[in-house]
């Protein structure tokens, strides 16, 4: 108890110093911890030294500078590189409600059609309990998008902070977000496009109009004798896609929808990153051929109840082999027809939970994204990924750190706890894959957050 309060005092004073004397910020050091790396290697009794958000030294022999505020891990704490969410919508303003009927549903304003590529998280993020929840789950960094429809806005990378992530912009617009979601409002108050095919057609039309506007702007720069272009921030936000200079973070799950995304890519030639991609395994060869990375969701369908029960029985059977008679009484009777169905059902479920494993094995570039998953489900889903999804703890850490960092283009700063990287890592009370592992501190861009 006593140690803990000292630690808090130290931290507190450390942060004040950081704020008031930016030029001579003292260092921080975390010593005597077990450090886990993305490649699976483990360093016992490690020390991590950082200053101004940058890691200065790591290892058994790291020298702690004279000015450092030192935290002693006391041998029992486990440090992991901060997890990175490759696409989250934390802090996003909610989707519009109670939309008014439109005069011309066939020709709606951009926002009512779901076309809002000009929006930026750094301008719109709200406070959100998800930021703290994310950090408590080990995340320190996230590429954030906004809730929306076919073109919800830009994707930007942030250092997480429970109170004010919006000011923690690390990298602006790394790409544009997209999906096949139709315009909001349903039949009564909806608008064009209201279908999958409509979204595809409307996307093409937006690309054509952005192409024409860009050309007009270029021509006008060359010769002002022509009529000036009507500037349009929505179409101008599409220029990076038209010019293939920024990737399209496209949220898509079924293999048919992934094929539809391929059709658009074939036509416009943009780079794309698949977000969520629950059936991506079914297109793994083509994804590899096209060099399309997948920021995979682990928001799996709930485990079939009968399967969960079978597993539970199996576990308890291991523990106690007695009560044979009682057991056989309780044995469930399953008809052949139901059994045949169950075989298919469990195959479908296994396909889903082994998606990431299959993609990795096929050589597809895979990272992690929550893409709308409720964080309170994270522990449960991670357990499934480890128990049923064919991944080890090392695979999971790698997935959520270096693999994701590389896909969203921040691997120079994030993904590992090594000298020169950003000081973003998490202190757990035990290895993260163990039951009831808890985050004690989260260091994000060098700032310590206590939980």
């Amino acid at each position, binding site marked *: 108890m006593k140690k803990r309060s000292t630690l808090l005092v130290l931290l507190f004073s450390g942060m004040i110093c950081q704020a008031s004397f930016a030029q001579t910020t003292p260092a921080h050091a975390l010593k005597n911890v077990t450090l886990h790396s993305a490649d699976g290697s483990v360093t016992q009794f490690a020390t991590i030294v950082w200053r101004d958000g940058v890691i200065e030294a790591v290892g058994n022999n790291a020298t702690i500078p004279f000015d450092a505020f030192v935290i002693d891990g006391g041998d029992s704490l486990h440090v992991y590189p901060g997890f990175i969410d490759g696409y989250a919508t934390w802090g996003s303003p909610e989707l519009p409600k109670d939309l008014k009927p439109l005069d011309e549903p066939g020709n709606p304003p951009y926002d009512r059609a779901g076309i809002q590529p000009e929006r930026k998280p750094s301008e719109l993020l709200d406070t959100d309990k998800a930021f703290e929840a994310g950090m408590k789950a080990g995340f320190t960094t996230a590429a954030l998008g906004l809730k929306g429809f076919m073109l919800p806005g830009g994707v930007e990378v942030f250092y997480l902070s429970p109170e004010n992530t919006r000011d923690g912009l690390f990298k602006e617009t790394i790409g544009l977000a997209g999906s096949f*979601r139709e315009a909001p409002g349903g039949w009564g108050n909806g608008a064009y496009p209201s*279908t999958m*095919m409509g979204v595809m057609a409307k996307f093409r039309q937006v690309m*054509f109009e952005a192409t024409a506007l860009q050309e007009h702007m270029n021509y006008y720069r060359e010769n002002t004798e022509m009529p000036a272009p009507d500037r349009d921030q929505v179409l101008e936000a599409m220029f990076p896609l038209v010019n293939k200079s920024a990737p399209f973070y496209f949220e898509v799950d079924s293999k048919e929808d992934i094929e539809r995304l391929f059709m658009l890519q074939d036509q416009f030639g943009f780079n794309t990153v698949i977000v969520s991609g629950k059936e991506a395994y079914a297109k793994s060869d083509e994804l590899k051929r096209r060099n399309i990375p997948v920021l995979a969701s682990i928001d799996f*369908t709930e485990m079939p109840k009968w399967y969960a029960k*079978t597993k539970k029985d199996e576990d308890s059977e291991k523990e106690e082999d007695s009560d044979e008679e009682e057991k056989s009484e309780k044995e469930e009777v399953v008809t052949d027809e139901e059994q045949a169905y169950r*075989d298919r*059902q469990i195959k*479908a479920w296994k396909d889903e939970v082994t998606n990431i494993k299959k993609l990795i094995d096929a050589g597809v570039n895979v990272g992690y994204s929550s893409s709308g998953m409720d964080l309170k489900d994270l522990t449960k889903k991670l357990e499934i990924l480890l128990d049923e999804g064919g991944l080890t703890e090392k695979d999971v850490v790698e997935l959520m750190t270096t693999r994701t960092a590389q896909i969203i283009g921040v691997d120079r700063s994030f993904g590992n706890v090594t000298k020169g990287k950003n000081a973003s890592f998490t202190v757990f009370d035990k290895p993260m894959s163990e039951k009831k592992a808890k985050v004690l501190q989260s260091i994000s861009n060098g700032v310590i957050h206590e939980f």
Partner: protein
Amino acid sequence: MKKLSLILLLVVFGFQAYAQEKGSVLIQNATVITVTGDDLENTDVLIRDGIIREIGQNLNALRGVETIDASGKFVLPGIIDAHSHLNGVDINEGRNPVTAEVTMEESVNPNSVGIYRALGGGVTSIHLMHGSANVIGGQGETLKLRYGTNQEQMRFEGAARTIKFALGENPTRVHGQGNGVQPRTRMGVEQVVRNHFDEAIDYKRNREAYLQRKGEYDRRKRGVPPVPVAQNLRYDVLNDIIEGNILVHCHSYRADEILMLMEVFKDYGIKNYTFQHANEAFKVAPELAKNGAGTSVFADWWAYKFEVYYSTAFNASILNANGVTNSINSDSGELIRHLNHEAAKTVRYGMTSENDALRMITINPAKQLGIDDKVGSIEVGKQADLAIWSGHPLSIYSIAEMTFVDGHKYFDRENDADDMRISVNAGTDFDDTSNFEEIISGRSDDACMQDTFTLTEANHQH
């Protein structure tokens, strides 16, 4: 738990997804209904690599080619349904009266078990259509029922491009009454067509002029650059219609609106189109024949809305007798399983010949979809899309026993697995699957209007 490991081991099914295959098979001793020629008794049909190679007697199969004894049975070309919404992901992009830019090609669900049921009725191709909410709806997609392949492989290669138009109550109700925009009346429907054609022609002129000036400017970099005219997908498609590159299939019922559209098309030089449903087409059969217009009708389905009361079971026979190319369609996931019965009704009611009745579900719809050079009859050189029937296909007692697409057997009643779904949902338990899709969907609704009555389910936001 032995049982568990058994479950895990048994995740291999009887049914595996097929790749798009071209098969070889020799069908022997059948009565072959060629449709375009005579019926041939005790005849063999040799199929190699998906193509009908020989029709005759005592044909020899190549080594390794399956031989089927069809003694006492009938071979009919695969049935073609010229009006279907069988496996559309969405049917109606119903928020604008004109949506020529959308296409059912991008709305194909290759996993629908309805495809397999249609195969069980001897159907090998469908015209997957946009719905009838809009005056000018989306483009259609002609599919081969290659069940177990993907959306790309289901496409009927070389089929004509098509588009859905709709007249009368549906577009006026959806847009005029529903959204307060044109068209509110039948007059408005005509005007929407004319206005959009005119706009499309204007656009084309402007776009071409711009492209020409752009070419000159980019080459010489002199003078004033042109103001760009963006490509417009909707107008591009409308121009393709005007130029005859897309066949119009128009949802219609009343004789006056049928005549109206033929006048409009005459003004714009559009030929080779088909009226769908067309319950009052019999009133204007000579005019249809004169304009070379086709019809695709129900055998005896009507009275489901006001404009469909004046109808008759003699419609198909009258059109046929007047020289109109007529097909009989299903517009239904249920009716598609026995289009042979629907064709038989024309024999029963209107004394149409058996051959003409069968034409209405084979070569005639093939003509209307621009695939009659490939399928729709049993002829050497044509694609081997056909079915073996237990008896004459117009008999109420006959059933399709095997159905082939490109010579590959996609349906075999003798070896019909219990569960032919391509995929099951991991989150759906056995007890919840009994109603997973209504087999008998009833005929009370016009399937063209699918998705347009979901007023209570207003939330499409996911």
